[in-house]
């Protein structure tokens, strides 16, 4: 099966570069490209690719809004953010908008191809550089308790400790204790990192998070 790909990036030279990454690959076919948000939307709507490589910063509609539109229109297109920004908040914003992956433009051709294949098969791909600036903690997902998983998911959906506490009928203090334990187990320093790590290790899935 050939994966149809659309590439949206406003910089011609980098766009050419990515095209070269994809050239000559039997299982990947570039079906369209765009240099701004509006035309990217048009190309995606027309070509209905399996994967759309989207730059966050583009003239017209920005990448995150484009992803949100793809999801709102119910198009079966896996969006993979291809960007220069290494801010975790962008990763979360993209994932919240419905992106299936986040990869930096400095990634190697092999990493890009791997990411395309993973998101095309409904997986989630996070660039190692943005997902973690921390060392691998030698972690196995079983270590999170079901309650901790629940707390992490709710926190991931943007709920405050207070809201989580009232939803789970536990005290806010207990929520804080759970979060501290989650951070500890995942080796994260904060909620964002914990969430990205949990996604990376498959502790939680993007679908669960977007529920």
């Amino acid at each position, binding site marked *: 099966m050939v994966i149809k790909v659309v590439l949206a990036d406003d910089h011609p030279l980098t766009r050419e570069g990515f095209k070269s990454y994809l050239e000559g690959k039997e299982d990947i076919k570039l079906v369209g490209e765009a240099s701004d948000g509006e035309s990217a939307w048009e190309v995606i709507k027309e070509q209905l690719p399996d994967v759309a490589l989207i730059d966050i910063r583009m003239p017209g509609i*920005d990448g995150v809004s484009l992803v949100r539109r793809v999801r709102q229109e119910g198009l079966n297109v896996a969006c993979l953010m291809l960007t220069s920004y290494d801010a975790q*908040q962008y990763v979360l*914003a993209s994932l919240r908008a419905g992106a299936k992956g986040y990869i930096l433009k400095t990634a190697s051709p092999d990493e890009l191809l791997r990411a395309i294949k993973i998101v095309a098969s409904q997986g989630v791909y996070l660039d190692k550089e943005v997902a973690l600036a921390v060392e691998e903690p030698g972690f196995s997902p079983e270590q999170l308790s079901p309650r901790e998983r629940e707390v992490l998911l709710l926190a991931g959906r943007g709920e405050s400790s207070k809201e989580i506490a009232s939803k789970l009928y536990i005290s806010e203090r207990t929520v804080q204790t759970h979060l501290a334990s989650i951070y500890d187990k995942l080796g994260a*320093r904060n909620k964002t990192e914990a969430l990205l790590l949990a996604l990376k290790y498959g502790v939680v899935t993007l679908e669960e998070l977007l529920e």
Partner: protein
Amino acid sequence: MRRHLLLILTLLVLIPSLAILIVTGWGVVEHERAMKKIAESYVLDLAQSVAMRVDRPRFMHRAQMMTPPRVLDSFVLDISLPGWVALVDESGNLLAASSRAQDVLPQIWQGGIPVGRTTLVEGPFGDTYTIAAIPTSQGWYVISAVAWSQLLGPMVRFSHLWPAAVGLLAIAGMCAVWAFWRWLIMPLLSLESEVSTLKWGKDLPKPDDPPAVWELRRLRKVLYQLAQTAREREELRQRYVSDLVRVQEEERTKLAREIHDGPLQDVTALLQRILLLKQEIWNKRAEKYIEIAEESAVAAVRELRVLCDTLSPPWLDLGLVQALTELTDRLARTYGVKIYLEASELPEVSKDIILAFFRIAQEAINNAVKHGCAKNVWVKVSYDGEFIVLQIEDDGSGFEFEGDVEALRVKGHRGIANMVERMRMIKGKIDVQSSSLEKGTTITCKVSFPLISGEETPRDAFNI
């Protein structure tokens, strides 16, 4: 001295006035008695001296020859003396009279006169007269009379006016004191209290209040103009500082954008080619060079990205909480300190507020770690439906801050001054609490952000 000026003035006017009033009053009373006495003794003297002269044989001899009434000549009466004299017999027939006495006496003398002493009579024209009757040895009577005004002249006429004049003087004095108080002291005091509480460069005195003498009004006007000039100058200065901050921020944003869209993309494109080339390499030596090139390109991309983020973080677009989260994450990683961010649900706020809060938090955390050697920083941002409040607290060493931002700026500590400036630009308030004794610094920023009721605030496009 200033406080007692009015009292002194009042006393200075009142005491002499009262003294004069009393002395004059007493003088008037005594004057009346004195005049009465003078008139009495004068009239009695006059009558007795005439009686004496009438008793002389020479007069008697002449009297026998005269047909009454006769004019009393200079023999018995020095005509230059004031008053009138008449000689009557026992049955009241007029024997002789001084000149005009014949006309005057009947007008003022009606009826009997007690013999041997004086009588006070009010004349027909409001004049006061003293009359006396003295018997002679022949059994006649000498009647003498004098008008007070004739005898004592203007003294009589004006003596009653003196107390009134002095009273008027006292009243005028009081009026002067009152006017002095009303138009000079009061406006001066009011001006003084206004000026003493005036924030130079911020406030203006009232242009004309309360009513005052022309000189004071002029002084107030001049002061008003000065204050206005000072305020305009201060406004200009602040606008200049604001412009500096704004232009700096704009330049940084522009520069960051240009680096991102230009060099960063170019180096990325360069890295892509290196990575592509790497796949084609067959030569060991070339592969080594290519790897070095790749490392350099990756390093360049990272450096450019850091440069962009430092100049103007792109994630400011994501919203206040996201921007603060990214900031605290990064600073915690960079410095190896603990930064606790606590954010409640916030409405979508303007870019200006996000930028101001972001820069203040950035500056505050940097200061806390670099200067205060803080190990823990607590950043809290909350919204109560009216105000968005950002609070940055640290456990650093703190510093002595007496509230004078300008003094800090002069000393080269621009951090706090810039925070104040940023809050001023978004019309917010900032409070800095720090002490090197108590340890730690707390910076609280507050900006009004009323929600328009009934209108759902749309969440930020990037809000997560």
